[in-house]
Structure formats: structure tokens, C-alpha cells
């Protein structure tokens, strides 16, 4: 199996296997992040993100962790661009039901698993909707993108302390919502 450096070098040379390897490795998380952020066209946006990644490979330097952070910084910027575009054209972002449908559309091989996944995705999406946009971004970058506090701070343009405060508030808000569901249900 090729190392990250080998894949990166081959990707810079335009080798198809390397570019595809980068996509296969990171596309699920990028697509999940964009879906959970309720991007209007998450698949198209994912494609745009990876085209941007391939075009910028020559300028990248760093290890696998910083590469992951770099890819998500591109994804986050594309998302903001799309939101601005949508705000100008007044299109509606994706519905949580669509999010769950998109997730359930992925092959899992078991009807029961698919049902649970759909429910789980729906539940998670509804909970995410209770957060502010910034809190949601921080939680998704921490959980879905699997980035550190510092990397999230770099992507969102905030200090690490602000990110920590935001994630604490987000978890408190989620816990409150979950407890309310439990009490009412």
C-alpha cells in the first residue's frame, strides 16, 4: 500500500490512481459534512471540492493530518460560496429528510441497517438543526471531519478558545434537547 507521501507525489503528477485514492479516502467525510451542513447540492459540491484539491496539490505541503484539514478548509469555503450564491438566488437548502434519504441511499446490504441508519441520520440531522450555524460547523468539523480544535479554529478563522467554548455550548444545547425528548417522550 502506498504511503501518503507517495500518493501525494503521484497525485501531483496527475496519476489517476493517486487522485482516485485521495477521493476514496476523503469523499465520504466531505460528502457527509456537506450534507449535514444542508448544502443544496452536496454531491456536486463534493466534486467541486476534489477538483479544487487536485488543482491545488502542487501548493500543498504537510502530512496526512494537515492534508485532511486542508481538504476540509476547501470544502468549508465551497459551502460558504454556495450559501452566498443561494442567498442571492433565494434557493432553499436541503431538507433533513433529504439528508436522511441521501444517507439511506448508500449501499449497506441490510434492510434493517438501512432503516436504523435512516432513523439515526434523521435524528442526528434534527438535533443538528437545533444548533446555531457556527455551533453546527464546529461540531461537524470535530466529529465528521475528525479535526482537532486547532484545525477547526484555522478553518473557521476563530481562536482555539472560541472553538472550545462553542463546542461546549453546542453539546449543552444538544444534551438539553435530548433530555427534553426523553422527558416528553
Amino acid at each position, binding site marked *: 500500500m502506498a504511503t501518503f507521501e507517495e500518493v501525494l507525489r503521484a*497525485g*501531483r*503528477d*496527475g*496519476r*489517476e490512481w493517486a*487522485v*482516485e485514492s485521495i*477521493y*476514496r479516502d476523503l*469523499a*465520504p*467525510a466531505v*460528502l*457527509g*459534512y456537506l*450534507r*449535514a451542513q444542508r448544502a443544496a447540492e452536496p*454531491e456536486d459540491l*463534493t*466534486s467541486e471540492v*476534489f*477538483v479544487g*484539491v*487536485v*488543482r491545488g*496539490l*502542487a501548493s500543498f505541503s504537510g502530512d496526512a493530518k494537515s492534508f485532511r484539514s486542508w481538504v476540509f478548509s476547501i470544502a468549508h469555503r465551497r459551502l460558504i460560496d454556495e450559501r452566498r450564491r443561494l442567498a442571492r438566488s433565494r434557493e432553499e437548502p436541503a431538507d433533513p429528510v433529504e439528508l436522511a434519504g441521501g*444517507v439511506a*441511499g*448508500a*449501499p449497506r446490504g441490510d434492510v434493517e441497517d438501512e432503516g436504523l*441508519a*435512516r432513523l*439515526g*441520520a434523521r*435524528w*442526528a440531522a434534527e*438535533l*443538528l438543526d437545533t444548533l446555531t450555524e457556527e455551533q453546527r460547523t464546529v*461540531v*461537524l468539523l*470535530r*466529529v*465528521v471531519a475528525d479535526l482537532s480544535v486547532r484545525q477547526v479554529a484555522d478553518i473557521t478563522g476563530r481562536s482555539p478558545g472560541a472553538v*472550545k467554548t462553542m*463546542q*461546549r455550548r453546542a*453539546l*449543552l444545547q*444538544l*444534551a*438539553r434537547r*435530548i*433530555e*427534553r425528548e*426523553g*422527558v416528553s417522550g
Partner: protein
Amino acid sequence: MSPLDDYQDEMSRLTSEQIESILDGRPVEAPGTERLEMFVHDLRRNIVVDPEPETAARHVAAITAAARTVVPRLRPRRLTTKLAFAAALLLGAGVATAATVRLGDAPGIVPDDLPIPVRTEVEADDQVSEPPRTTDEPTEDVTERPSERDDEPRAPSARSTDGCAKAAAAAGAASAGDPCAKGGGKGEDRRDDGGPPEELPGPSRPGSGSRPNPESGGSPPGDVPIGSSGASGGGRSGGSGGAPGDVPAP
């Protein structure tokens, strides 16, 4: 207080480490965090999924097409960089060759006693840095020549204006009854040579052993013969050197 308030109170007491553990998907030993852990687990498991095969194939095609368009743009830049590097190497090699050729010619042009100019510089430095002295002042400063021992015979200073007279007196005394003169040979030769004593580390100290000695007939700095370089001993020039008037002014 309602159970909800209790729960919120417990949640607000979560430490930063516990919050990090929840977000990393690790179990936390704190009451009321199970559902949060479940949420994070669901988010990870159900949101991060492979794209559909048709979507993935479409994406890969678009990305590889982009990669093919990017690489040709990069190659000319790399070629230019390599050419520039090769040109720099050639230039460097040319400069090095030219320098080597000059150095190779040097033995034919420059005399073997190359340290002479260095010696002159040292002396010039001494003259500039040292304050003017009167003839009554001691002619040698111990601090100037730390390697010289006190019991060593000191060479007369080049700055003394009556040094030649003193030397002449000393020579007279030596020929009259100096035990060295009686012993013959070495002591007399030493005075005749006018150079520093053999014990002095002349060759190792360009500022001491190479200093011309006017009293003993050494030449002034400007007229230092090649054979009297610091490396070959200070007094080899013999007693036919410069006159007292050639001694540089203090």
C-alpha cells in the same frame, strides 16, 4: 428543581477533557452523557458514508480530467526551474574554474614568502594603536608580547630613537668583556644577526618574531626583504639594514 434542570446542571459541569472524549467518540464516566455519546456515534456512522457508485464514478472522472489539465501547466514551470538550476550550476563552475586558474598561476607571480604583507600590516596596526612614547619610556610593553618570558633577552624596541646608539654601546661592551663574547660563536652571532633570540617563538607570532629590528640592522617596514619574513626568522637579514633614520616615528 425539575429533572431537566438537574441534567443541565450535570452537563454544565463537564470538563474540557470529558467534552473532548465525547467528541472523539470515547466513553465518558459522567452521568447523563450516554445520549450525547450516542448522538456522536450516529453522526459518525450515518453521515460519513461512501457516495453512491454512479456518483463516485462521475466524481472520479471529473477529478482525473482536472488532474490531466493541471499537470501540463506544472511541467513547463518545472522545466524552467531545472534550466535555471543548471545555468546557476554552470555559472558557479565557471567562477570556481576561473578562481582555480588564478590560484594556479599564483606561485609563479607571488613570491613564496607571502606573509610579508601580513607582517607589514601587523606592524602598521601596532604603530597606529599604540600611543606615542618618549625615549624615556620602557621600550617594551609586556602586555604587547605575552609569549615572551621575563628572563628572556628582549629585542630592543624599534620605537626607540636612540636604539642604535644603545646597540652600539652594547656591542662594544660585549666585545670588551661579555661572557657571551668570550664563549664565542653563539652569543656573538646572535647579536650580529640582530634577530630575536632563538627561544622567542618568532615564527609562530607574526607580530613579534617578524618585527624588523632597526637597532640590529633590520630594514624598515617598507624595505623588508623577502628573506626576513616572519616565517623564516626575524634576524636573518643581517646587520646591513636600515639606518636609524628609517625607524618609523612613534
